[in-house]
């Protein structure tokens, strides 16, 4: 009963990948991959997705804790607001980031005049755009894990005199580690594939803001074969990294 839709679902997800593999220009693959622009885009993608994930962890785990553990008025609204980047078309997210963090934005204007710091068209801008789009994935999975965790451990620690910070560090975090890991993986994958917010907020310049998805999109304009090669590289790298990490973090713990 469940097998048929499950197989159909799998086929639906995997067939486009098969399409890429079938149409890939295997004979020229080597020379295309060796192009410095490809390696540069790949390096930038991996670095910025990883930095974005770190930023998501630093900001997102405390936010998830706040939503799961601290009752406050309007929590429901805050929870809905956290998911806004999921619903927002990424390009709109990019425009919104420009309006706030751009050179003439609400916060960006001040950053520029006070520190001479501008974010659009920089690698930092790429990381911020990816963080914006990917953070909900982390917050939602960590919040879910926190809600599922047994509160009695934390209460026991509290009765033994542990501070809130100690409890969070020594009891809560280890308890929800698999949830944090799963969230971080989702977050990283989303950041790696990010296109709309990145190109709108950070622009597109090779070596500085041109990540793999941007390179794929532009290659599609003139050289679809190159676009297929680039997509395959991105897919291969992400599948390898995700498979390795998932085994180590999620199933082991």
């Amino acid at each position, binding site marked *: 009963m469940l097998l048929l839709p499950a197989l159909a679902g799998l086929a639906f997800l995997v067939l486009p990948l098969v399409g890429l593999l079938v149409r890939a220009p295997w004979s020229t693959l080597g020379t295309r991959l060796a192009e410095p622009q490809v390696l540069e885009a790949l390096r930038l993608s991996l670095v910025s997705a990883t930095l974005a994930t770190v930023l998501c962890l630093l900001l997102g785990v405390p936010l998830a804790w706040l939503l799961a553990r601290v009752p406050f008025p309007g929590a429901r609204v805050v929870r809905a607001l956290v998911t806004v980047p999921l619903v927002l078309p990424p390009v709109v997210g990019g425009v919104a980031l420009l309006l706030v963090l751009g050179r*003439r934005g609400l916060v960006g204007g001040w950053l520029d005049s006070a520190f001479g710091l501008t974010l659009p068209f920089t690698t930092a801008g790429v990381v911020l755009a990816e963080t914006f789009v990917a953070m909900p994935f982390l917050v939602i999975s960590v919040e879910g894990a926190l809600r599922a965790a047994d509160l009695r451990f934390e209460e026991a620690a509290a009765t033994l005199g542990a501070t809130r910070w100690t409890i969070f560090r020594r009891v809560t975090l280890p308890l929800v580690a698999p949830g944090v890991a799963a969230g971080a993986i989702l977050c990283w994958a989303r950041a790696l594939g990010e296109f709309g917010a990145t190109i709108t907020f950070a622009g597109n310049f090779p070596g500085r803001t041109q990540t793999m998805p941007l390179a794929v999109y532009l290659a599609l304009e003139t050289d679809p074969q190159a676009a297929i090669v680039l997509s395959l590289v991105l897919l291969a790298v992400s599948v390898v990294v995700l498979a390795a990490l998932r085994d180590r973090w999620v199933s082991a713990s």
Partner: protein
Amino acid sequence: MLKRIAVAVTALSLASVTGCGDTGDGEASPASGGRTLTVFAAASLTETFTALGAAFEGSHPGLKVRFNFGGSSTLAKQITEGAPADVFAAASPATMKPVTDDGAASGPPRVFARNRLVIAVPKDDPGKIHGLPDLTGPTLKVVLCAEQVPCGAAAKKAAAAAGVTIRPVSQEQDVKAVLTKVRLGEADAGLVYRSDVKAASPQVKGIEFAESAKAINDYPIAALAKAPQPGPAGEFVRLVLSQQGRTVLTGAGFESP
């Protein structure tokens, strides 16, 4: 199990094929108002072609004109992959070429408009720009189209004609993205088409420069060989090429061929 999936998929695709046939096959019901002319056109033609489409509907009762505006190369790809379209208007001969090479056009494309580049600046013009050489300032933030898209190719040609090297902070995916960066003041200047500046005024100012004459973009149009509505397709092409079409296009900043 797999066989059953295959049957379901086949049934679905058949349904969609007949669905297309229904909308496309309008000859059977000329008076019932079910006929639709599908026009694929470059994004920069959005305003002008929408106006011309309304005029065309006015002179052809019962006929609806439906537009698919987008990047020319994407549209060309959709057409060569079999998307049902009657007319294709591209932003450059290079993006029309895959369609004619594929035998998908019903005849040789005709150039119906030209567009030239201008320097777009925010309305307060923080960079005090007068011409292309001003775009080489080291602190100036200039955005251009990527070389892969027609406006980027034109920008490269214009810069070469002026003998200047522009170092953009970003190579955008299309001309509207360049305009957005200028409009929001993130960029001090960008190179876009004159018609785009006209559509974005007064938030964006256009500055003409002499070298743009070396990088004028031709817009070709063609009725398609597999047009579901071959008659109206030809008539729409004639309307675009007519004096009326020319008036609408030049009013929006395009030049006559």
